[in-house]
C-alpha cells in the first residue's frame, strides 16, 4: 500500500528518533510499512488540537477515577497514570512472534514450578543451582508435593519486554506473582475510542476487552467444583492498584472481597453475606503470599484469611496465582529461563533474554570484569534495585568497589549491557518528541494459555530517561496489535 507522505511542514516532519529503534517509524533501514496510514493521519493534525485531545483524555481519566493512590505524609492523593494519545503499534507478524514467545515462557516457568515442588529434576541435573531455588525467600516449602489443576501455577503472567536498537524484543523481567497494569490496557483503548476515533478508523485493531471473560474462564477451569463462586481478593481501597481490582472484579462479574469478608471453617472458605456465610471456590488474589494467611506466613498480616492455606492444600479452593510462584520471577532465576526452555521444552527461546551473564560462572565473571565500565551489574539478592552499578555512569572508585565485590562473592551478581529502549512519538509540551517505551503483555493460563493481543506500553515521559515506572514520571500508551492480512 502506498500512502503519500505529509507535507514538509507537517506535525512529524521534525521528529527525530535518533539512534533508537522507533515503534512508529521503525528503524532507518527498516521503515514500518504497517504504520503508514497512522503516520499520515497524525501528520495532518494540528498540534494544539492534539494537545486539546490529550487534555480531554486526562480529564476524563480523572473523572472516571481511573487512578492510583499516592500517599504523602497525611493525605492520599488520586493520580492518574499519565496517558499519551499517540498509540504504540505492533504489526501482525511481530505479534505472532511475541505471542508464541510469551506462551513458551509461561509453559517453561510452569513446568519449572511443578518440578521444583515435586521431583526437582532440574536441580538434580544441575541446570539450576539448588541454593538459588531452595534458598530463595519466595520458595514455599508448603507447596512441596501439592498438585495444582493442569499443573498451572502462573495463571496470570506479565512479561516485561524491551526492544533494543536493532528492533529485537527481549525479556527484561518476568512477573509471575501479582502482575498489574492490565486495567490500563483496556481503559486506554476505551479512552482512545472516545478521543481519537478518527485515528482508529479502518485500521483493524485487535480488541482487548475480553480479558475479563478469559480470566473468569480460567478461574472456573481451576475451581474444584462446577459452577463455582469466584471472587477477587484485594488488600482493600488503600492499595495503590485498587482501581485495577475494581476493574477486574467488574469485568469478571464477581465480588471484590477483602480478607475480612472471608472466613475458613472446616478447611472451606466462605464469604460473609447479608444472608450468612456463602461458599467460595476460586480466588483471584491480588495479595502477595506473605499476606495471604497469617497462620502460615506473616502472622501480622491483617489483610489475609487465617486458614486459607490449609483449605488450598486440601483442594477445597483454587488460588490464582498459586502460592510460591515468586521463585520463578526472581532476578537470578531469570538468567536461567533460556536454559529452562531448552531443558523442559527442548526449544530455543523465541524471545531472548537481555544478554545476561551469571557471574557465578567463570567465563561470565571474566567477561564482566573485563567490560565493567559498559555493563550494569546487579546483585541477585533480595532487595530490588539495591546495589546496582551502572558502568557507564559509575566513577572509577565505584567501579573498583564493584570489582572487589564481584571477586569476593561472584555468585551474588549478574551483569547486563545497558539496553537502549526503543522510542515512540509522544506528545510533549511543544512538539511531538521521541520517548522510551517498554511493553508488558499479559498471559492467562488455565487449561491452556491465552495472550491478550496488546499489553501495557509504559512510556518514560521525562526526556532522556529510560525509567518507565509510574512512580518516576512514567505514563502509558494504547497498544495496537494490528489484525493479520493486508491492511
Amino acid at each position, binding site marked *: 500500500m502506498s500512502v503519500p507522505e505529509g507535507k514538509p511542514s507537517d506535525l512529524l516532519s521534525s521528529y527525530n528518533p535518533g539512534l533508537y529503534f522507533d515503534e512508529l517509524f521503525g528503524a532507518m533501514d527498516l521503515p514500518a510499512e504497517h504504520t503508514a496510514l497512522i503516520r499520515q493521519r497524525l501528520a495532518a493534525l494540528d498540534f494544539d488540537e492534539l494537545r486539546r485531545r490529550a487534555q480531554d483524555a486526562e480529564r476524563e481519566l480523572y*473523572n*472516571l477515577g481511573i487512578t492510583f493512590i499516592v500517599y504523602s505524609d497525611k493525605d492520599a492523593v488520586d493520580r492518574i497514570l499519565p496517558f499519551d494519545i499517540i498509540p504504540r503499534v505492533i504489526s501482525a507478524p511481530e505479534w505472532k512472534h511475541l505471542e508464541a514467545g510469551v506462551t513458551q515462557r509461561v509453559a517453561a516457568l510452569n513446568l519449572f514450578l511443578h518440578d521444583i515442588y515435586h521431583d526437582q529434576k532440574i536441580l538434580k541435573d544441575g541446570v539450576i543451582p539448588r541454593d538459588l531455588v531452595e534458598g530463595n525467600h519466595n520458595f514455599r516449602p508448603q507447596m512441596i508435593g501439592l498438585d495444582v489443576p493442569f499443573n498451572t501455577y502462573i495463571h496470570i503472567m506479565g512479561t516485561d519486554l524491551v526492544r533494543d536498537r536493532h528492533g529485537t524484543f527481549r525479556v527484561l523481567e518476568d512477573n509471575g506473582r501479582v502482575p498489574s497494569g492490565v486495567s490500563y490496557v483496556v481503559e486506554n483503548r476505551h479512552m482512545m475510542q472516545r478521543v481519537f476515533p478518527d485515528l482508529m478508523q479502518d485500521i483493524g485493531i485487535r480488541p482487548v476487552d475480553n480479558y475479563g471473560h478469559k480470566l473468569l474462564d480460567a478461574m472456573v477451569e481451576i475451581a474444584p467444583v462446577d459452577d463455582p463462586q469466584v471472587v477477587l481478593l484485594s488488600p482493600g481501597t488503600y492499595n495503590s492498584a485498587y482501581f485495577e481490582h475494581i476493574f477486574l472484579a*467488574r469485568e469478571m462479574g464477581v465480588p471484590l472481597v*477483602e480478607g475480612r469478608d472471608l472466613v475458613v471453617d472446616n478447611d472451606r472458605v466462605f464469604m*460473609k453475606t*447479608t444472608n450468612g456465610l456463602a461458599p467460595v471456590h476460586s480466588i483471584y488474589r491480588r495479595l502477595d503470599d506473605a499476606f495471604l494467611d497469617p497462620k502460615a506466613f506473616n502472622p501480622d498480616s491483617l489483610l489475609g484469611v487465617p486458614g486459607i492455606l490449609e483449605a488450598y492444600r486440601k483442594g477445597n479452593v483454587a488460588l490464582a496465582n498459586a502460592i510460591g510462584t515468586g521463585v520463578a520471577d526472581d532476578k537470578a532465576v531469570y538468567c536461567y529461563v533460556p536454559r529452562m526452555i531448552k531443558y523442559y521444552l527442548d526449544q530455543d527461546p523465541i524471545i531472548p533474554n537481555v544478554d545476561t551473564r551469571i557471574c557465578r560462572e567463570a567465563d561470565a565473571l571474566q567477561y564482566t570484569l573485563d567490560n565493567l565500565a559498559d555493563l550494569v551489574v546487579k546483585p541477585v539478592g533480595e532487595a530490588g534495585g539495591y546495589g546496582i552499578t551502572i558502568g557507564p555512569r559509575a566513577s572509577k572508585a565505584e567501579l573498583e568497589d564493584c570489582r572487589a565485590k564481584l571477586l569476593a562473592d561472584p555468585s551474588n551478581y549478574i551483569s547486563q549491557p545497558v539496553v537502549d529502549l526503543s522510542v515512540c512519538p509522544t506528545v510533549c509540551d511543544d512538539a511531538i518528541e521521541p520517548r522510551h517505551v517498554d511493553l508488558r503483555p499479559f498471559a492467562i493460563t488455565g487449561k491452556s494459555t491465552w495472550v491478550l493481543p496488546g499489553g501495557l506500553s509504559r512510556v518514560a515521559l521525562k526526556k532522556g530517561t529510560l525509567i518507565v515506572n509510574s512512580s518516576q514520571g512514567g505514563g502509558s500508551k494504547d497498544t495496537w496489535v494490528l489484525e493479520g492480512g493486508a491492511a
Partner: protein
Amino acid sequence: MNLLSRYAECIFWMARYMERAENLARILDVHETFARDTRGATNWFSIVQLNADEKDFFSRHDRPTAEAVIHYYMFDPQNRNSLLSMLRMARENARTLRPWISTEMWTQINVFHNKLLEMSVKDVAAQNLSKVCTWIKEECQTHTGITEGTFYRDQGWYFYQMGKYIERADQTTRLLDIKYHTLLPSPLDVGSTLDVSQWTTVLRCTAGYHAFRRVYPRGMSPTTVAGFMLFNEGFPRSVVMCVRQIDGVLTRIRSRYDLRGGSAAMERVDELLAALLSRPIDAVLRDGLHEYLDWIQLQLSVVTTEIAQAFFGVQPPLAVQSQSQ
C-alpha cells in the same frame, strides 16, 4: 446473587450520606433566608445546636458568625458533619462499591466531590450561598436520578432505599426542629407575619410549599405545617411516608431473597409506624414538638442498629456499650 455484608453496609451509608448532603444544603439555604430577617446573624448558631456540634465548633471558632458557620458546614474536613466530609464519605463508600454500582453513579459522585474540593470559601461568600446550595441540591438529585435509572435492582437496591429513607425521615425531623431552635416558642409570635413567613420557608426548603397549599388552601398554622411534614401520606419527605417506604423495602427484601435476619428491625419499624399513625398532631404539639422529634430520631437510630446487626455482620454490644454510627 449473594451480596457481601460489607457492600450492603456501604450501599446503605452511601445512600444516607448523599441524602444527608442534600438536606444539609437545604438547611443552609433556609438559614440564609432566616439570617436575612430582622433577627440577623444570631440565627446561624441554631444550626450548630441542631447538629449538637457546639463543643467541636467552639474548639476552633470564637463566635458563630455567618462566615465561620458556613465554612464549618461546607468545607471543614475535621467536621464530620460538613458537606465536604459527607461527600468524602459518600465517595469512599462509592469507591468501595465500584464493582457493584454503575460507572455513571461512581463518576458523578467522584466529579461532584472533586468540584467541592476545589471550591473555596470565597465561592460561598454569603451572597452566593444560596446558589451553591442549589448546585449541591441539584447534584444530589442528579445522583438520585442516575441511581434510579442505572442501579441494578437486586439486594443492593433495597439497602440503598433503606438508607435513603431512614436518612430522609431523620432529616425531616431535624429540619422541622430548626423552627424550634430558631424561634423559641413565644406565644406572642405565633400567628405573626414573621412566624408565618418562617413556616413558609421551612416548607419551601423541603419543596413542600405548593403541595401544602393544595392540601390546606386556607391558613397556615404550626399545627398544619408540622402535621403535614410529619404525617402527610403524599408528601415524599414526610416522616410517615419515609417510614412506610422503609417498612415496604424491608418486607420485600426479606421475602424476595429469603433473608433469615431482620425480624427485629421489621418489628421496630412496624412499631414506629403504628406510633406515628396513632398520635394526632395537636397532642404532639401540646406535649412538645422538640421532644417528639427527638424520640423519632432515636427510633430511627435503633432501626439502623437492628439492620446493621441483621445484615452487616455488626455484633450486638455485649457488656460494653458501644456507640454505633
